[in-house]
């Protein structure tokens, strides 16, 4: 089947509902293609592009030349607008800078400084895209919000729950970032790309002559234009008046032996091997970070592997909170291959997770997402 016929026989996840659908448009090829797909289905649409972060705020981070093509940049707003003009549907830029800073940027920096490994995209989805943006969509008369996420949603008629599923294209799957969505949020979300591969999306974009069809993908965190978190945290902390943890501290082994010195705990993440600043006989990794003691604890690969951990902020997605232990495939970071585990709920928000086999670098601050096959059963923050 070639891509053209694929487009004509697009799987209808559900019958097209009447009424306006808002599209969260970043200016990238994915969300732009969502617009083309929905329009092709005869769906009335309105585009919304969020102004999230003012890159000029931290001028020292401005990369030179072509580096500047990033999410949140004026170029992206311009691209989104051009797509809307090309396809001829209404489009607006909406200001969520304040919410984005409060709910995404500031927590990201705070967590980093607390020695954790935060994951901003999940907060952005749960607390910005599917919260104030969805609300704005509803206020302007759209009952649902479509995004360019690679994931699928379906209603389970037996349980009458909205289920979140992995994308058909596993290499693009973004369900890991969406575990925080409530049933209400899911019921109002549309992910038209969930059944498509990235290549199919490109083909569709070209077929509808989208001006962004050949635009490269952005891989970095949108508000860190250089991709250098440490540099961002330093610049942001200065701007926001946050005092950075006092400079130099010790690098120690699990047994407390001092093996080196560091210049600030925010320079380290769990599992990091490079840049420890000293040569060791065998490879050493960051095992944990203790901002209170201003210490970085290192050890070998075996010490980095753990079996059990606690999670907080549990959100059950495709199922209700189970009465007893559940067998799952748990994924502890975006690029982690889900591994067999058991989740024991402690209460409505806390749980203990035990892998069948030890896993590397279980980093506090990351999300743990629990799958049953393609279904996202739920997720939570690693404590």
């Amino acid at each position, binding site marked *: 089947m070639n891509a053209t016929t694929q487009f004509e026989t697009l799987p209808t996840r559900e019958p097209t509902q009447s009424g306006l659908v808002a599209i969260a448009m970043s200016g990238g090829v994915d969300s732009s293609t969502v617009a083309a797909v929905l329009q092709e289905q005869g769906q009335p649409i309105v585009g919304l592009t969020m*102004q999230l972060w003012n890159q000029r705020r931290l001028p020292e981070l401005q990369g030179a030349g072509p580096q500047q093509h990033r999410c949140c940049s004026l170029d992206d707003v311009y691209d989104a607008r051009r797509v809307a003009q090309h396809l001829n549907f*209404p489009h*607006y830029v909406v*200001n969520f800078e304040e919410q984005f800073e409060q709910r995404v940027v500031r927590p990201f920096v705070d967590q980093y400084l607390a020695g954790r490994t935060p994951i901003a995209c999940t907060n952005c989805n749960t607390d910005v895209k599917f919260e104030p943006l969805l609300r704005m969509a509803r*206020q*302007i008369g759209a009952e649902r919000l479509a995004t360019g996420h690679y994931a699928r949603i379906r209603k389970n008629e037996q349980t009458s729950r909205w289920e979140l599923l992995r994308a058909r294209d596993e290499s693009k799957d973004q369900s890991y970032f969406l575990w925080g969505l409530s049933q209400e949020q899911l019921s109002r979300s549309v992910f038209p790309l969930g059944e498509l591969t990235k290549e199919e999306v490109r083909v569709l974009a070209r077929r509808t002559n989208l001006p962004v069809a050949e635009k490269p993908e952005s891989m970095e965190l949108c508000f860190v234009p250089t991709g250098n978190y440490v540099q961002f945290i330093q610049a942001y902390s200065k701007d926001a008046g946050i005092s950075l943890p006092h400079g130099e501290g010790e690098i120690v082994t699990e047994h407390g032996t001092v093996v080196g010195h560091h210049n600030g705990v925010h320079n380290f993440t769990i599992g990091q091997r490079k840049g420890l600043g000293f040569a060791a006989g065998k490879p050493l990794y960051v095992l944990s970070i203790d901002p209170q003691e201003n210490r970085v604890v290192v050890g070998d690969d075996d010490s980095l592997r753990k079996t059990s951990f606690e999670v907080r902020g549990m959100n059950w997605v495709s199922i209700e909170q189970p009465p007893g232990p559940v067998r799952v495939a748990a994924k502890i970071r975006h690029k982690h291959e889900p591994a067999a585990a058991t989740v024991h709920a402690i209460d409505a928000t806390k749980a203990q997770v035990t892998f069948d086999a030890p896993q590397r670098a279980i980093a506090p601050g990351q999300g743990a997402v629990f799958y049953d096959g393609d279904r996202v059963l739920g997720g939570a923050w690693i404590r």
Partner: protein
Amino acid sequence: MNRVYLDYNATTPVEPRVLDAMLPYFSAEFANASSIHTPGQHARAAVETAREQVAALIGAHPQEIVFTSGGTESDNHAIFGVAQPCLAGRISPAQLAQPHIITTTIEHEAVLNACQAVEKQAVSVTYLPVDREGLADPESVRLAIRPETVLITIMQANNELGTVQPLEEIGRFAKEYKVYFHTDAVQSAGKIPIDVNRLNTHLLSLSGHKLYAPKGVGALYVRGGTRLRQLLYGGHHQRGFRPGTENVAGIVGLGKAAEIARNSLAGEAKQVSTLRDKLEQGLLERVPQIRVNGGLAPRTPNTSNIMFAGIEGEALVIALDLKGLACSVGAACSSGAVEPSHVLTAIGLSQEQAKSSLRFSLGRHTTACEIDIALDVIPAAVAQLRALSPTYRKETASHV
């Protein structure tokens, strides 16, 4: 979709008679107004006629009118043009006190940002607060005047509220203390009568596109004898005040628009204010928990700024636009997103209240039928938004 346009303070359509007057100067009469030859003389004559027409609108002499690219250039020219010779006259910073400028917190960005720019060049600036209705107090202007004050720049009508400042009193103080007085009259020209001699103003900014002339043309009134440095360097056009080949068609359009405004001002003000009052009254009757910002001050006849408690103004503007009604909220930033208005926070509104305020501005072509449509569409949209508002319920209890 039949669109209702209530955003005349953002810009106005070019009047058909203005367009007709302009058209020959794009093609048949295309010559350079500085040329010696006959075609050039035709263009020159058209420019000078326009100068007379603009001068007549504000009670000035034609030779006191400098054509510019618009309100922003006029404001910049006034501020930099006064401040820079003062800076240049100082031998060293220690020798003389810093030149001083007085303005208000609710000026247009063209004035505010120009003031901030000269502040970086060692000019001190006083930003006078305004009262809850958006009015500056002439007495506090007088008290702010210092021996080193070189310029007072205060807008005549505010773009967001429509409030009209007591410029005559301020002008009297300026005259008494021999301080240059500039006013940005971009939002008042054509809406209320202007007489530069009654106002005692030395400098006054005008913009074409707020006056049914095209975008990209404006004027600066410069009272004879005013010491003003040029902003741009080039040829000797416009007595060297403003080099650059004259935008003849645009200037002709501005002249024609000024003439029409002068002739129709009184009748139009009455007609527009009747419709504006109908809109305000109608909204006050149909929508609970609203307030007219600046409603107790003297206002231009066409502007209405309304706070709708508990709504996100940005969402309301979009919802209304999707129903065909064009109005505005806050100030657009470079991406086109909305930032809370500095004017509304300056009159004492909270960030929340500022974000829930919308501006409706009427114009020459607004009809009673359009106001009826607005009175239909706005209450429905506000109700829809409030039903989804996280803040409305708790605000209903508090006083608006």
